[in-house]
């Protein structure tokens, strides 16, 4: 093939459009029935290499036409182009900026695969990588006035971990919170809505808490203030503490009423955490001594669930509610600790029983020994 051409027939064969029966001419125009250079006739509508500024409209020719798309996949959406126009990319594009993403930047152009294909650049596992091609490039993003550390931060986050390590495809990636075709950062007022799609309970509690009104009047974006947006780390109880990871003390004054409430909640969590660990320790000892404590081990899951629940209840910022969950968990952990201790005392009982029977056996053996000696001392062996 001639050097200027960037794609071979083989490469295009993997494209979903090729598999559905489209050809080069479907997008590039021209007359496929003619041979050689005659095929690329302007009269037949040959467009040559498609200019970037024409790409969205070109793709939209088919993909915004429901009647046309119905013959290929009736459930495929056809509003991508109109959504795109509302996005930050689309709006800048309309003003003439050709650096922003157009369809082919994210989807690819000649080896395009559906989003459900793991090799696709827009498969959930690959989306962050695709966005980062521009958004992590400081040089490319110069002049747009937004940071370029999102990809790096996301890569260290717990959501990224869930997606790539645990393989949980429901975990959020860039498009989950920002939208895909209508991509735009959620406004300060709507961040909470985005997070609440999955983190329902935290949202409900926060809504009813004192912080809701306070944040709103201060123009602060809900969840992000304490948890950050891209680099969301796995939260620890340290967030409630007084150390470098503490979030409450970023706003509140040490010693004031809120500080005391914070300390109360932290103490509750610590109490439950300690109770769970204490029970675990005893159960471990019992287990390694050979005692059967699988039921108590299982019930520890319930105690741990209570701890998780208490940590969610933090978002109500009401120590009384947190304490309720803590108490529930402490009760269960105490029961399991008891089970472990019972197992240990049963073990000791068994060892005492063994000791006793060993004494009897020893007596018998001694008796036999003396009897034999006696038997053989006065009668010569046969």
């Amino acid at each position, binding site marked *: 093939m001639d050097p200027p051409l960037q794609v071979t027939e083989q490469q295009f064969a993997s494209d979903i459009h090729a598999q559905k029966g489209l050809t080069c001419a479907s997008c590039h125009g021209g007359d496929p029935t003619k041979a050689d250079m005659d095929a690329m006739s302007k009269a037949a509508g040959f467009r040559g290499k498609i200019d970037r500024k024409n790409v969205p409209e070109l793709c939209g020719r088919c993909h915004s036409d429901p009647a046309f798309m119905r013959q290929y996949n009736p459930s495929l959406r056809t509003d991508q182009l109109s959504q795109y126009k509302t996005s930050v990319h689309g709006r800048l594009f309309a003003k003439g900026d050709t650096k922003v993403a157009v369809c082919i930047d994210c989807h690819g152009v000649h080896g395009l695969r559906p989003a459900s294909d793991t090799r696709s650049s827009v498969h959930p596992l690959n989306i962050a990588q695709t966005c980062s091609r521009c958004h992590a490039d400081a040089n490319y993003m110069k002049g747009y006035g937004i940071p370029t550390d999102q990809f790096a931060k996301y890569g260290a986050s717990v959501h990224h971990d869930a997606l790539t390590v645990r393989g949980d495809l429901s975990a959020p990636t860039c498009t989950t919170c920002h939208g895909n075709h209508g991509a735009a950062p959620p406004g300060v007022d709507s961040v909470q809505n985005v997070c609440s799609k999955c983190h*329902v*309970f935290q949202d409900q509690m926060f809504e009813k808490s004192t912080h809701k009104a306070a944040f709103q009047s201060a123009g602060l974006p809900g969840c992000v203030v304490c948890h950050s947006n891209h680099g969301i780390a796995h939260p620890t109880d340290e967030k409630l503490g007084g150390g470098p990871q503490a979030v409450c003390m970023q706003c509140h004054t040490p010693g004031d009423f809120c500080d005391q409430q914070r300390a109360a909640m932290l103490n509750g969590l610590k109490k439950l955490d300690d109770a769970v660990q204490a029970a675990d320790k005893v159960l471990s000892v019992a287990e390694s001594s050979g005692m059967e404590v699988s039921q108590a081990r299982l019930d520890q899951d319930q105690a741990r669930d209570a701890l998780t629940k208490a940590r969610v209840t933090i978002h109500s910022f009401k120590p009384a509610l947190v304490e309720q969950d803590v108490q529930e968990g402490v009760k269960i952990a105490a029961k399991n600790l008891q089970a472990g201790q019972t197992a240990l005392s049963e073990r000791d009982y068994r060892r005492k029983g063994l000791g006793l*029977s060993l004494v009897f056996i*020893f*007596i*018998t053996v*001694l*008796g036999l020994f003396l009897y034999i000696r006696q038997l053989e001392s*006065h009668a010569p062996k046969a």
Partner: protein
Amino acid sequence: MKTEEPGRIQPLRRRMVEMLLGGGLFASIVSAIYPVLRYLVPPPVADLGGDEIVAAKVGDLKPNSSKIVRFGTRPALLLMTSEGEYRALSAVCTHLSCTVQYRNDLHQVWCACHNGMYDLNGRNISGPPPRPLEVYQVHVRGDEIVISRKREA
């Protein structure tokens, strides 16, 4: 020590050794028989907790309500639909193993952890859960509601 004629051991010594031996034999045999006898008496709880449990009694559940019970080593959800039919599902969410609950306002099974939803046949219909909940069989035996699992080969 007195010198003995061969054939004559002090009767007292002999008796003591015999008693020691006899006593030891008796005690050791008893300490062996005792556990065996205790073992032969079946424990009060005959249920292995493996494949089948009595989850509730008829009348415990009202229509459109549910109960969490222990089934083997994991929790199970027994519910009665609004039409009065019993269903039993595994209560372990297939997303991150939280315990699910029956929502009588939605008539669906819900997981509080990440808003996962399942229908009354256990199918995962919305949210993160990747797989349906395991479905168990429910039978009414007399006045007992029994939940059971299918048996393996």
